[in-house]
């Protein structure tokens, strides 16, 4: 037996096996977004579903991210054809209502869907407390690096994206982030206005 050569061979093989083993410790589908920590991409999007008082906005109004400077903004991308969106809908709607008197703003962004179908979906789901907007040609979705729906972005009062959530979000996660961001002193002069 030539043990020296065997050892060299083993020395080559072990890192390969280690690399494959490393593969198990990660999820190939979870792709970290580069956005958290950076300024949220601006958007001006038209309301198609008004939401409910006290959070309602008129249909046709334009929601601009920059008007929400100083607030915690929750941007949720959804679609009527998305099954997982049904799971998070109640949590989002109720959390928005619970924080109605705090400096927060919830925005639903309809992703690759028709507004008629979106409106029908909202009424089938028993309403949505906050307004939803349309995203022409998915420009906002691409600006936010969207992989699919649902995805939720939580934007801090200073205009930076604090957190991106993949898949259905829960009241607990929403509450935790909003509370912690609200305790930070909100800055009046925000930088979220810069147009990309």
């Amino acid at each position, binding site marked *: 037996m*030539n043990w020296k050569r065997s050892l060299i061979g083993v020395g080559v*093989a072990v890192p390969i096996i280690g690399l494959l083993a490393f593969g198990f410790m990660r999820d190939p589908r979870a792709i970290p977004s580069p956005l958290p920590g950076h300024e949220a991409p601006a958007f001006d999007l038209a309301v198609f579903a008004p939401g409910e008082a006290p959070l309602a906005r008129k249909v046709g109004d334009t929601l601009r991210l920059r008007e929400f400077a100083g607030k915690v903004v929750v941007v949720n991308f959804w679609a009527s054809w998305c099954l997982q969106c049904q799971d998070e809908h109640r949590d989002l709607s109720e959390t928005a209502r619970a924080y109605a008197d705090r400096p927060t703003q919830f925005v639903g962004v309809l992703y690759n869907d028709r507004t008629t179908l979106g409106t029908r979906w909202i009424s089938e789901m028993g309403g949505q407390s906050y307004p939803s907007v349309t995203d022409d040609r998915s420009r906002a979705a691409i600006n936010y690096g969207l992989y699919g729906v649902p995805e939720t972005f939580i934007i801090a009062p200073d205009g930076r994206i604090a957190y991106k959530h993949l898949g259905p979000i829960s009241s607990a996660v929403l509450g935790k982030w909003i509370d912690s961001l609200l305790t930070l002193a909100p800055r009046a002069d925000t930088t979220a206005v810069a147009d990309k």
Partner: protein
Amino acid sequence: MIGPVAHNALIVSFAVVLFGAAVAPFAIRSGRRDLLRLTYASVYTNFLLVSIATILMVVALVAHDFSVSYVAAVGSRSTPLFFTIISLWGALEGSILFWAWVLAMYAAAVVWMHSKREGNLVPYASMTLLAVAAFFAVLLIGPADPFKPVFPVPTDGPGPNTLLQNHILMAVHPPLLYLGYVGMSVPFAFAMGAILGGEAPSNTWSQLSRRWMLASWGFLSAAIVAGMWWSYEVLGWGGYWVWDPVENASFLPWLTATAYLHSVMVQERRNMLRLWTLNLCVGTFVLTILGTFLTRSGILSSVHAFTTGTVGYYFLAFIAIVLLSTIVFVAGNSDRLRTKGSLGGAASRETVFLLNNLFLTAVMLTVLVGTLYPLVAEAFRGVKVSVGEPFFNRMAVPAMVALVFLMGVGPALPWGSTSWEDAKKRLTPPLMGAGVLTASALAVGARSVYSILAFACVGYAAVANLREYWIGARARRNAHGENWFVATTRLVGANRRRYGGYVAHIGILLVALGVAASSTFRSEREMTLRPLETLTVAGHTVRFKELWLRDEPQRSVVGATLDVISREGAIVDELQPRMNFYKVSDQPVPTPDVRSGFRGDVYVNLMAFDPDGKTATIKLIVEPLVPWIWFGGFVVVIGAVIGLFHGAKRAERAPQAAAEPVVSAPEPVSVGAQ
């Protein structure tokens, strides 16, 4: 009822293969060779038991026995019978069962054909195959048990993956793939048997193993082409290869197997490259397991990756065992396998084979490293990166073009050596082919240096290979006065391995030509059409007639009917691209429609439609020479079959007459031994 019976059959088969594998070394060491019958009997018993389990699974699927976990996972009462049966290999557990069955079949065939052979090669090879079978038996009674009881028994199931129940090629591609993949365990088993049985320094074992490798290679080649065809017919964008990890996984062992089939000739002729050839044999097997691991473990995301549980960990452990034990065995015995190389000269077929092996290995390692690099990047940089089509096209395809060129050089050069003047004389005529194809490519508008080079190499190699037939047949004609047809048939018959190889070369060249032409001259356009509006691409026109809707038990189908219109304005064909909405899936599955012709395809896909039925968005793709790829795959298989039947008769008249090379080709070398 079915579940427990099949499960117990698999448990017994596990015990049987362990027993059979353990008996073999004992029988050989103790000199009681009659005990080897127990090993062989356990190979047959394993085949019987796994066959029972496989048949029971098919019965359970067809009978919709939802108390069996696999049926509950992939079965559905609304799925047509045909797709119900082929869902046997549509998901993880079933595919492992099918794998185990194919392996058991191969092992039984090996024992059936070779157990009378003297020496320790076949006993140790059987032991190796049983050890591999034991691993799959462990999977089947443990983490990938397809016969788990389900309670309460559901009344219906979700049905198979919608992508897999959409096309008939799903009945063809996976079985071919398994026959190819699993078949590569046999040459590996012979390699291990040769090392353990002390036969490795001779050529005797490789004559067995190369036949099995050739058969598996033929299956794998057919499987790869069938897989390309499936992608083309199902995925809806007119492509057939995207360097997806699963595609790469099937391509990697094909590359090393191809290298092996060439280097083993050098080994037999020249007594060199012995260690290298053995490594290719072992490496091919390791790559089949690695490929299976990559697609079953879910560590790389991919189109066809199976969803998994803990099976990946078992595969990783198996890879570790196989890799480490073979490295220790092969490297440990490498001193005995080293041979002094001797070459007549640089201008020889051997040199070309060395280059062929270099480029095949380079392509293999490039694809392997590219496929695994996302893991490396994440491990060391913590960043997710992608390595996709542009990388592989840029880094692997040039070496593949070089291989096509070498396919023209190798057959033209003699074994041994020749003078540079003679080499020049042999290598000049094929330049004509290169010139013709280059000129035609330029004439139809090819401008990129890259694709022009590809066409030139294909033309060169095509003429070089066809010329071998011509030279050989001409020699026979002159010597025996046969007509061209008889001369060519007898020429092939007299040296099936060699001329079968050239047939396979021509098949590969047809594939290469189809790929080069369809990727260079592809044109496409997408448009939303109202009825009677037309869409024209590259001189091909389709006219939208109507949208229709059809309800089937398992799906709803929305289709568009389009007329294909000739330049003269006549309707020459009707195409019906469809969009299928399966009850179990959110995603519609497209079914493009293709009009194939000698010169290429008109490919139509329904991208979207108006709910009122007023408009349809149609993508029209014109791709020249695509059918040549499928036909080339067929030719490759014919070549493999011709090569396989080599030697069956020949082995009987053992000391071969050296007559054949003298008449078949004016080669200066006739070493005689073939």
